[in-house]
């Protein structure tokens, strides 16, 4: 029997709110499967499981805030015999939101069932998930026939009842975290809206429109390009919601960065790197490719950083218990700014071992999922270093603040044409300023200098990246 715990999705996370279970007791799961959605300051995160097995029991109700490290579910190994079912009467449960207490039968693997007094005098057996779902969907439990053990009503029964009644409402609406928060604040029911975002995602514009009485009714035809939101003379009430979402993320960033500046004695180094050869090579390479397969210059920087970290591993790892713990794996936390404000650094795993094409696919994947609010727990759990590229903003040089417990942040500015003297000759070259912010407890400037030197060499030998 194994326990599934609330993961730490970053040093700044103390707790997360279970948004939804993606599995039910009895489901087989494989390592890497998403089993729950957890709402954090970084949006709704798909949480993966790290072992194979069968879901035994879900211990937490959706809507409950769970501290990092708390047990959320029991799992038994695929080969392990399932604990015997018992016909003991179901245990009374307190109402959510609460972390459900341990049952007196730890080996009990029946679906969670709790009694419900029904109007006709009989007791309805309803799983807590089904009860929650029924409340959300406005289904009267007394009208349902349960298909679970002992006639218990499961979540499937509730959803099936709704699907029969009105197929559209049972579809799971895709909704951005900002929009979800805004909907809750403004009392808008997202399930009644048609999203105008990519793949029908409900965006904050849709919620704003709904709140100001301009709801787009769910329509079968594809929505027209969204007209700009109305600009009433008075400040619309919707303005407050994004501030709330951002303030959550702001607080998380504030806590992590304050800890960084309080505890980490930073040192900063910079070097100017001639990118001309690397960019010429990339342009020739991209010329051979269709637009969809082109590689962005930042991918060269990701790969060169990863290879330089492999050569200078002291910058790749964590400062834990007054000690540097170097990491063999190189997972680059790639800083992605959100359009609505805030910053997330999802991991590009094993960046040193991947080809440029694979890294481009990874960069695309993490940016898209970060911006769509579809991050997975593995994106946020294990970055060993952070890379910040602010060149697109016109920034020339980045002075990084290390994300604890990491020990370095690598920064890149924009590519600039600059006069460049070499071997007694003066020319114009395309130059980028690379910086490293290092944790002086873990390493000294010499280590950071070695890193920048190797980084430079990698970018001069671009064919070997």
């Amino acid at each position, binding site marked *: 029997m194994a326990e599934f715990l609330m993961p730490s999705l970053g040093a700044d996370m103390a707790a997360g709110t279970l948004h939804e279970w993606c599995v039910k007791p009895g489901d087989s799961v494989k390592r890497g499967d998403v089993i729950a959605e957890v709402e954090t300051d970084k949006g709704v995160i798909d949480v993966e499981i790290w072992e194979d097995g069968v879901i035994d029991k879900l211990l937490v109700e959706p809507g409950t805030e769970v501290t990092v490290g708390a047990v959320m579910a029991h799992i038994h190994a695929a080969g392990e015999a399932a604990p015997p079912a018992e016909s003991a009467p179901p245990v009374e449960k307190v109402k959510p939101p609460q972390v459900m207490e341990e049952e007196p039968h730890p080996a009990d693997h029946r679906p969670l069932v709790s009694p419900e007094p029904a109007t006709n005098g009989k007791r309805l057996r309803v799983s807590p998930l089904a009860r929650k779902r029924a409340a959300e969907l406005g289904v009267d439990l007394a009208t349902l026939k349960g298909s679970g053990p002992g006639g218990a009503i499961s979540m499937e029964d509730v959803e099936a009842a709704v699907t029969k009644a009105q197929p559209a409402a049972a579809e799971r609406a895709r909704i951005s975290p900002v929009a979800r928060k805004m909907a809750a604040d403004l009392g808008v029911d997202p399930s009644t809206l048609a999203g105008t975002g990519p793949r029908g995602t409900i965006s904050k*514009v849709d919620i704003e429109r709904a709140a100001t009485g301009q709801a787009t009714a769910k329509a079968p035809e594809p929505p027209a*390009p969204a007209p700009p939101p109305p600009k009433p003379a008075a400040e619309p009430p919707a303005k407050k919601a994004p501030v709330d979402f951002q303030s959550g993320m702001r607080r998380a960033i504030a806590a992590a960065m304050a800890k960084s500046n309080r505890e980490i004695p930073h040192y900063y180094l910079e070097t100017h790197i001639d990118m001309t050869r690397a960019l010429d090579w990339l342009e020739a390479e991209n010329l051979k490719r269709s637009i969809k397969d082109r590689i*962005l210059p930042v991918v060269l920087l990701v790969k060169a950083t990863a290879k330089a970290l492999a050569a200078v591993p002291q910058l790749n790892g964590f400062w834990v218990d007054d000690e540097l713990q170097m990491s063999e794996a190189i997972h680059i936390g790639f800083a992605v700014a959100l359009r609505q404000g805030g910053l997330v650094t999802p991991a590009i795993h094993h960046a040193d071992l991947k080809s440029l094409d694979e890294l481009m696919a990874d960069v695309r994947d993490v*940016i898209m999922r970060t911006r769509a609010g579809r991050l997975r727990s593995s994106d946020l759990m294990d970055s060993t270093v952070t890379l910040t590229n602010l060149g*697109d903003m016109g920034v020339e040089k980045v002075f990084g603040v290390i994300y604890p417990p990491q020990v370095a942040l690598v920064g890149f500015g924009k590519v600039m044409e600059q006069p460049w003297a070499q071997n007694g000759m003066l020319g114009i070259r395309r130059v980028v300023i690379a910086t490293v912010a290092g944790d002086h407890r873990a390493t000294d400037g010499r280590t950071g200098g070695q890193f920048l030197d190797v980084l430079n060499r990698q970018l001069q030998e671009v064919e070997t990246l």
Partner: protein
Amino acid sequence: MTTAVAFEEQIKATIAETLGMIAPEADLENLDPDADMRKVLDIDSFDFLNFLIGLNEALGVDIPEADYGKLVSQNDLIAYLQARM
């Protein structure tokens, strides 16, 4: 003449639709057609590449990387696409 106008409208609509996917909050109606789109709409190089991929898929126009620098404003883009469709 009417066809040319209709053509331009079609390109504009495609640009609006593709940009809408990337910057859903953008106010395209009031976007100055000669302004630097990437600066005004806060579009980074990743978003810009996706924008061009979207245009390529919708209109079938191939845009070599060497031409990216010519595509600053909405009017630049319309002229560029019109010449190649």
